[in-house]
């Protein structure tokens, strides 16, 4: 049975923030979910329920409350694991995708790393990476002597695979790239790249920040080794991210953050470490946030990930045709198939000014380099205006966006 189409007007009522108004009574049109999503009531309730009924230090106490807290936390891990088709012992809770990627970059460059670096070894990234999947590798390259290489981006905003055979080779030790671009909406060919990288023995890391929230993901089918995403972009709380990894790989990786609850035996001089996932979760964990994330996952699952993907594609397609109908508006990125991030330029008006006019109409978009500065340079611009869509956005929201851009053109007198 195909999932029913989702009804955003109805879903919207689950999100208290979307009822508020901005700029003197204007309806809020929230088109910035790519930066962070809004939260349904069930997520806030789940967090609160944890604090009001089960809060204690997981894994550390022998009393009833500690048992219940542990159960809640480990239960959340199972829910998240199931959501991506993984085993729960492969799911590490971090504070964010940013921490997850840093964890990987530090662990895989430490002295005990399963990868022993030889100067000249390569890490392959793409030109469309978010700073979170770029700077940790720059820092890692400084420590190891590794060389960063980049898969270029075509004018259409796709990965340019023409010379991929010269980019992936014997020296490639790690390939790390984004599943979906947070700027262009491009969806990259994960399996193809992963297989290619595996053929030379490289470890494949996927930044799934912009895919896991928006489509059904089966981590086994993707064929990658490590995958990261953030809770706050998928209806979950701030302060929680995920690192998924093949268990045997995780097991071979040394810890990153060290401290309590990730140890086996500790003396003053040295320590031995637990198996994953605990090895990577030092300290009292972000229990309430993990529980909130599990509630978000359950909400998403109930709505249906395929229905969400279809809904977003519908909205972004309408937005593209609406914007392209305006003279002097240029879309960056592919026409489709694509994710829901939509970047555009308005001739003669700086994105900051476009965003300001939209904001004045209650339309919240993001302007700037979107933490992908090198990609901006690739397209010869300093910034773009970006709208991102989610399950609670409606066609009215798309109309408000287009109307706002028209108003900006009138206001700055740039419409031909």
């Amino acid at each position, binding site marked *: 049975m195909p999932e029913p189409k989702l009804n955003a007007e109805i879903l919207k009522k689950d999100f208290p923030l979307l009822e508020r108004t901005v700029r003197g009574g204007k309806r809020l049109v929230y088109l910035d979910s790519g930066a962070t999503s809004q939260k349904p009531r069930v997520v806030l309730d789940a967090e609160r329920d944890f604090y009001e009924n089960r809060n204690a230090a997981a894994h550390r106490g022998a*009393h009833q409350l500690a048992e219940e807290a542990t159960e809640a936390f480990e239960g959340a891990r199972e829910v998240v694991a199931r959501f991506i088709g993984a085993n729960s012992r492969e799911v590490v809770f971090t504070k964010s995708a940013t921490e997850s990627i840093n964890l990987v970059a530090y662990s895989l460059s430490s002295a005990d790393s399963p990868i022993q670096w030889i100067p000249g070894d390569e890490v392959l990234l793409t030109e469309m990476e978010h700073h979170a999947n770029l700077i940790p590798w720059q820092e890692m390259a400084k420590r190891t002597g590794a060389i960063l290489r980049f898969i270029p981006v075509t004018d259409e905003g796709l990965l340019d695979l023409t010379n991929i055979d010269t980019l992936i080779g014997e020296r490639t030790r790690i390939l790390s790239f984004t599943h979906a671009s947070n700027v262009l909406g491009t969806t990259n060919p994960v399996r193809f790249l992963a297989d290619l990288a595996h053929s030379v023995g490289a470890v494949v890391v996927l930044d799934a920040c912009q895919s896991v929230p928006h489509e059904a993901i089966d981590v086994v089918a993707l064929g990658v080794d490590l995958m990261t995403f953030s809770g706050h972009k998928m209806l979950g709380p701030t302060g929680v991210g995920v690192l998924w990894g093949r268990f045997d790989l995780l097991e071979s990786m040394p810890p990153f953050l060290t401290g309590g609850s990730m140890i086996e035996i500790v003396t003053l001089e040295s320590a031995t470490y637990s198996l994953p996932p605990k090895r990577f979760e030092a300290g009292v964990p972000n229990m309430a946030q993990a529980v909130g994330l599990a509630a978000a996952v359950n909400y998403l699952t109930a709505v249906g990930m395929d229905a969400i993907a279809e809904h977003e594609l519908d909205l972004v397609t309408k937005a593209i045709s609406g914007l392209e109908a305006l003279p002097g508006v240029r879309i960056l990125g592919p026409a489709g198939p694509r994710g829901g991030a939509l970047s555009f330029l308005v001739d003669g008006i700086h994105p900051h000014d476009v965003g300001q006019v939209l904001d004045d109409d209650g339309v919240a978009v993001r302007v700037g380099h979107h933490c992908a500065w090198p990609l901006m340079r690739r397209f010869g611009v300093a910034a773009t205006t970006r709208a991102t869509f989610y399950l609670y956005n409606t066609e009215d929201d798309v109309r408000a966006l287009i109307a706002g851009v028209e108003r900006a053109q009138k206001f700055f007198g740039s419409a031909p």
Partner: protein
Amino acid sequence: MNLEKMYQEIILDHYKHPQQKKLAPLDNGAVEVHHVNPTCGDEVTLRAQVIDGVVVSVTWDGLGCSISQASTSVMAGLTQGATLQHSLDLTAQFLSLMQSKGVTTEADEVLEDGLAFAGVALYPARVKCALLGWMALKDAISRESGELNE
């Protein structure tokens, strides 16, 4: 009330009078393992000797709570003299009892005194205590077999 359910007489007896809690000399290819419970620091040292597929000797020493001590004592009593296969079966059965949340089945009856630990399964934090000695045995057996295979 709950307390009595958890600390059955059998458990307290084994705790006060542990079986085989005296390490046999390490000769004739006996294997020694040392296991620690990382949450509480409890430790067990276990020596096992397997000859011709029979666990001829299981002795141990250790520091720990009533549950870990009693459970190790029960384990030592049940497995010494048993076949290797039966010892592994018992270990699997005990593990499944510990994951049962207190519901026992007929199959658990092979565990004899070990059945008394059903109540412990209701306390997740104590399950690790009950498993300490059993996991040490499992480890010892797999090392022993590893050596045999080499």
